């Protein structure tokens, strides 16, 4: 059986049992991914029960609450509800900035590693992954220790005379950015590294022979060649940053809800509004899927 068009051939050895062999995968995907998402979708259209739980009557109330503001007492004429849009927008901006930061630092890092001799490369990769042997929560709390007002970072800066008053980093967006950047940097470095490693450097030389400057070579040859790695890295950083809760909570002081904490509040907070929590999660999922669809379309266009 040949896969149409791709030119790849698939062995027939396992053809009769192929579906059975794939069964564990399908079951895993079905039970642990599709089923929970379907449940969430259904719940988002149910009526909320006071203090948690649902009543099995279908309604659009959860989505209505997301979009329309009916005033504090719920009897004013509906206008656009900015509360949740603001929360989503803030999370999107935060995740985009973390992605950009990771890209700016991650790309040169990956390039550096990929251009070392093969024997030292694995050592560099190993160094990049070492912090990830420690639990994310511990790393985030440690970051808090480092940057607090009387923490080592401020002590060192004060001691060296670079600053006169301690930097107020903790409970700011900068701290959250720092936390996200530190948490997800390897997710950027590793895919880009994999792409750069496969890159044929004689292409750069050819470009140079044709009088392309360094910047032009990077822009016109290297980046297009390693683009799949860059995009994969961006997705791997952006998506978890969007739902991040540890860094905003511990480093940002939880003063404002992020998407993750907003959803949590619906299930574990006072509100106990499960349909709204499910609807918020579905809206987030839809946003992410739209972004991925655009990526997929861009990819297929390039291949044609």
């Amino acid at each position: 059986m040949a896969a149409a068009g791709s030119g790849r051939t698939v062995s027939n050895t396992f053809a009769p049992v192929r579906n059975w062999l794939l069964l564990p995968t399908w079951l895993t995907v079905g039970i642990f991914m599709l089923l929970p998402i379907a449940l969430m979708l259904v719940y988002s259209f149910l009526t909320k029960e006071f203090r948690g739980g649902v009543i099995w009557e279908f309604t659009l109330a959860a989505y209505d609450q997301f979009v329309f503001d009916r005033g504090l007492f719920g009897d004013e004429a509906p206008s656009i509800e900015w509360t949740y849009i603001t929360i989503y927008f803030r999370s999107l901006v935060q995740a985009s900035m973390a992605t950009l930061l990771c890209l700016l630092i991650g790309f040169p890092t990956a390039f550096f590693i990929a251009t070392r001799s093969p024997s030292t490369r694995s050592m560099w990769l190993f160094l990049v992954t070492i912090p990830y042997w420690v639990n994310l929560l511990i790393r985030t709390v440690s970051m808090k220790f480092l940057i607090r007002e009387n923490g080592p970072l401020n002590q060192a800066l004060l001691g060296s005379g670079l600053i006169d008053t301690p930097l107020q980093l903790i409970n700011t967006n900068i701290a959250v950015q720092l936390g996200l950047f530190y948490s997800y940097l390897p997710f950027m470095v590793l895919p880009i590294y994999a792409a750069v490693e496969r890159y044929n450097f004689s292409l750069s030389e050819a470009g140079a022979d044709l009088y392309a400057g360094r910047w032009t070579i990077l822009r016109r040859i290297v980046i297009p060649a390693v683009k799949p790695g860059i995009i994969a890295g961006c997705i791997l950083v952006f998506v978890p940053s969007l739902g991040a809760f540890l860094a905003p909570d511990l480093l940002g002081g939880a003063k404002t809800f992020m998407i993750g904490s907003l959803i949590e509040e619906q299930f574990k907070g006072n509100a106990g509004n499960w349909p709204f929590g499910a609807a918020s999660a579905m809206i987030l999922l839809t946003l992410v899927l739209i972004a991925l669809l655009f990526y997929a379309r861009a990819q297929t266009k390039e291949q044609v």
Partner: protein
Amino acid sequence: MFKHCVRKSLAVSIGLSAALIAGSAQAEGKLSLYHWFEYIPQELLDKFSEENDVEVTMDTYESNESLLASLKAGKLGSYDLAVPGDYMVEIMANEGLLDTIAEGELANKGNIQPQWVDVPFDNGRKHSIPYQWGSTSFAVNRDVYTGDINTTDILFNPPAELAGKINMLDSQGEVLLMAALHLGMEQCSTDRDKLKALDELLQSAKANWASFGSDVAKDVLVSGDAAAGQIYNGFSAKARAEGANVEYAYPKQGYVVWMDNVVLLKDAPNRDNALKFMDFMLEPENIAAVTNYAQYSAGVTGAEAFTDPELAKQPESAPPEGSAPGAFIAVCDQATQEVYDQLWTRLRK
């Protein structure tokens, strides 16, 4: 969702160790607790295990609301006992999540201090027994601010020294009740003008708050990340013991009083052992062990004989003469509660 991982892993490890210790003894019966984090000394569980030949397992939760959510999401029937706070006892009873303790089923019921028998959230103690009680107000770092702290202005209209250095509890009930006390308004209000004033107060006060966090309430004071913070009295005492120069306030406008209670859950798989555990926790010596560990107050007659004498002298557990009374968090009806829920979301937007 996962912000409470520390405590969860703690819960798992405590649960595992309890299971291992008790399991090795080939215990006869079982008892399954659903308890607050970091609240009960392991030795006490071991003692109960040995005395009654019962294998004790414990899971922990970090807020009354997450206890409720978890039970409603299908955990009812897997635990025997839980330890909800005052208002949550009433909510859980209304939701039909609690079993009734029949007259005479608890041998030590007479040990409950008289003032804690006919409580507003469980009149006559049909579902619950007192566990620990205390107050929630706030503590101020005296190195930073030396003025009068016995006023809710500290949180809602702070002096310049404290502005921007205040941690609030990440708990809707406690924050909104404190704000209501500041304005002198009733709980579960339906007065629109008052509710709008409450909304405005919260929005304006927010600018002076550095962070929201319940489990970190003590740490931020000890580390200096916050110079003032809403806090439970026992937590404040612990902060002081850890070297922070903090003073616990008894604001003249009032403060929050709370009481945690052991409740018998509906469909408890080990009902008999659950009742045994309740009787066990009504023994003055045993409940005093919790008091010594958590630094709150017991609601059992005679417990004082076994508590650390230092605790009684703590300023955190002794309101000064003539201070305002504390208030329990009230349980509102659905329409009223939805307005308060909105105030909370608007505060965090």
